[in-house]
């Protein structure tokens, strides 16, 4: 049993944790939910004694009647890994790339358990079996780069539970993974907690994940726990306004009234794109056909590597096709210089990463005016930039600022303003809301819906997450291994999926139980 009592922390004069209290009981799963910057990860690092240098923590983290905050570093090293294990968000970088996975799992066993290498490796084998990486297919000699993201996260779990700690902290363990992989990893974590009687602290931004997993839920905002209790009670009662906002935003669907107009704006016919890789060829697009109508919003869903980003690139005329045809407004889309600028000006794009989407050295007005390269910069371009800023809910005076002065949500608004400035017919939204916190995401979805209604825009809305697409798309396409395997209205695709891939995606989609909402 680990108990946090009035845990507070200050970093650089700023309070990052404020009177956090939590009970983490054996065999139970506690979900810690909040938006980015709410202090979830800080709480985890405080328990582990791994707070960033310069952070001062007060209060108590009690384990066996000892306050972990008071323990000297060598003592704490004996607690970490042995009594408390932890896994992190990014499985691709969480493992040492130069060390075989067996040795990485065995390391903790040798260190704390005093086992020799052979014995430790034997036990590591057992742990890897336990997390679903069985012996013949996954020898101990594999290196991390030979595994997929989900498999690496399993290795990380095997490392964390190697010594059967009483508490496992999982900090956004599935955020970087595909939905179906997420479901399997969450299943594994649940089984481990239940069968081994281990306390699990599951940190996530996703309310739906918590709803399906946790016995108890704590909601965090601004370094404080604003509400906590049994999961069902928290979801049903929603005593704190912040909890209400989070739940309302999590399945948000903007009000839309689409009226697609024929003929179709975008037609993709039998598109084929191959990549040459050292291991051989890869067919990223395998005779893909789709249409997007004028004023229509089409959702494109698939797991990583299914070809949806490649499709976006060829539609935008950034990569050439090997076969097939893409037509926009009846004109051929080709990659490179042959594509007329007037045709390029009919399309724009909004990317996922609000931080990488803008050149940090340019001012907002220059950033937003960049698409004018296609049309020629009109004399009143500054007014146009100002109008575009107002249209996405920002101030015309923001034009003189630099991008680092804006939050993630504001940057995504700027990206939309940039896409809008030359009045394109089609906007490709490539995971455009995936990196945003739920409340900001709801606002951006509203903005997108309003702009579509105002300007008769067509959207190609690309996402790995069916639940996001549901609120925005008139039609949903499901992609797998370079092919479109299912197509239909969102209710039909989610309510009655026909293709196995769609069924798997729907089944894996974390949902808040209907009766709790």
């Amino acid at each position, binding site marked *: 049993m680990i108990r946090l009592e009035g845990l507070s922390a200050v970093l650089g004069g700023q309070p990052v944790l404020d009177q956090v209290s939590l009970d983490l009981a054996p065999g139970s799963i506690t979900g810690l939910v909040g938006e980015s910057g709410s202090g979830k990860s800080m709480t985890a690092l405080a328990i582990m004694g791994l707070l960033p240098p310069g952070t001062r923590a007060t209060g108590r983290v009690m384990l066996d009647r000892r306050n972990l905050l008071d323990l000297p570093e*060598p003592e704490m*090293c004996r*607690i970490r890994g042995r009594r408390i294990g932890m896994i992190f968000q990014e499985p691709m970088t969480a493992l040492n790339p130069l060390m075989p996975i067996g040795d990485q799992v065995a*390391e*903790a066993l040798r260190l704390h358990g005093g086992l020799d290498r052979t014995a430790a490796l034997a036990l590591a084998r057992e742990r890897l079996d336990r997390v679903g990486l069985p012996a013949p297919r996954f020898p101990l000699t594999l290196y991390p780069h030979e595994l997929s993201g989900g498999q690496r996260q399993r290795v990380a779990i095997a*490392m964390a539970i190697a010594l059967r700690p009483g508490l496992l902290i999982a900090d956004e363990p599935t955020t970087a993974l595909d939905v179906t992989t997420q479901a399997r990893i969450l299943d594994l974590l649940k089984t481990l907690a239940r069968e081994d009687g281990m306390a699990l602290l599951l940190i996530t931004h996703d309310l739906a994940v918590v709803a399906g997993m946790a016995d108890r839920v704590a909601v965090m905002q601004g370094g404080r726990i604003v509400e906590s209790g049994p999961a069902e009670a928290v979801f049903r009662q929603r005593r704190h306004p912040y909890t209400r906002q989070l739940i309302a935003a999590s399945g948000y669907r903007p009000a839309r009234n689409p009226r697609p107009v024929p003929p179709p704006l975008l037609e993709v016919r039998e598109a084929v794109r191959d990549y040459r890789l050292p291991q051989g060829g890869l067919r990223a697009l395998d005779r893909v056909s789709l249409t997007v109508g004028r004023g229509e919003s089409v959702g494109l869903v698939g797991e990583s590597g299914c070809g949806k980003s490649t499709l976006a690139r060829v539609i935008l005329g950034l990569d050439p096709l090997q076969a097939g045809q893409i037509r926009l407004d009846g004109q051929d889309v080709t990659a490179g210089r042959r594509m007329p600028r007037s045709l390029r000006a009919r399309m724009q794009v909004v990317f996922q990463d609000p931080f990488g989407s803008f050149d940090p050295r340019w001012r907002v007005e220059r950033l937003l005016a960049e698409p004018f390269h296609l049309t020629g910069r009109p004399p009143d371009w500054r007014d146009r930039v100002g109008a575009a800023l107002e249209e996405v809910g920002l101030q015309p005076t923001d034009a003189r600022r630099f991008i680092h002065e804006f939050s993630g949500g504001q940057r995504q608004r700027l990206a939309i303003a940039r896409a809008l400035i030359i009045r394109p017919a089609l906007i490709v939204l490539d995971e455009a809301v995936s990196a945003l916190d739920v409340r900001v995401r709801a606002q951006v979805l509203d903005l997108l819906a309003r702009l579509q209604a105002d300007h008769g825009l067509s959207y190609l809305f690309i996402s790995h997450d069916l639940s996001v697409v549901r609120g925005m798309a008139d039609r949903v396409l499901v992609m797998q291994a370079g092919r479109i395997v299912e197509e239909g209205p969102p209710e039909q695709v989610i309510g009655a999926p026909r293709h196995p891939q769609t069924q798997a995606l729907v089944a894996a989609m974390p949902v808040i139980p209907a009766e709790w909402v």
Partner: protein
Amino acid sequence: MLRYLSRRMIVLGLSLLAASALIFSVTELVPGDPASFMLGTGAQPETLAALRQQMGLDRPLPLRYAAWAGAILQGDFGTSFTYRTPVGAMIAQRLQVSLPLALMALALAVAVALPVGLYGAARRGRAGGGLAMGATQLGIALPNFWFAMLLVLVFAVRLRWLPAGGFPGWSDPGAALKSLILPVVALALPQAAILARVLRSALVETQAQDYIRTARAKGLTSGQTLRRHALRNALIPVLTILGMQFSFLLAGAIIIENVFSLPGLGRMIFQAITQRDLIVVQSAVLVLVAAVNAVTFLVDLAYGAVDPRLRRA
């Protein structure tokens, strides 16, 4: 691994081919051909023409290159114009000084840089680490030939522990080694300073990686993570620098050979240039460049050994 190896071998071969062509064409630009240089200013035009023909200097450039390169492939580096001795034998004799000098300097540089770099990374932000890194700043700024002069002043002139220059030959290995100590130190320490800084910054960068956090969460102390996880990963950039440094080391060796009057390859190139003994210059420069390429090749192999991700590429 085999594919990796064979690809590196092909790259090595092509590099040497290109380098030899470059060296050959550049030396062709040198004013005054060897024949007229050998005969002096008062030579009869007929004698000159005869000698040129005898030396093959009247043939077109590509043919002469092909002949030169083909001969080298068979181990024949040609004959020195001035000394009338086989260039291969001359180079072999000079390498007996240059090769030990370069290798010992490299070894010493690594031996010094490793602990200093580790110490600097482990004691980052503390007095000890700052002191170590300050010392490396001085080391990098130190001109090696001046350092060599100071070493001579102290250890040869004042203390009389070691010879100030010259090389007695390997017939007396003790004396030979003794005469190489100061040159090796002068060559190695500035290089060690660079290497130590690279190692430290690579270690510091590696320590910010996610897998270091994972290792800490397993209960490793910061020292254990440094040794068990960070060091091996930090070796990759260090290897790159090590390979590049060999080129600096050879350049430095040419100067150091001058300070200590060592009969090495560098000094031979100098003498050959002043005597317009172009075939010696060509061959000796080719040997130097080949040495750099060979080290690059070895570094590539070491990458493969350190990094499992490369073995399959």
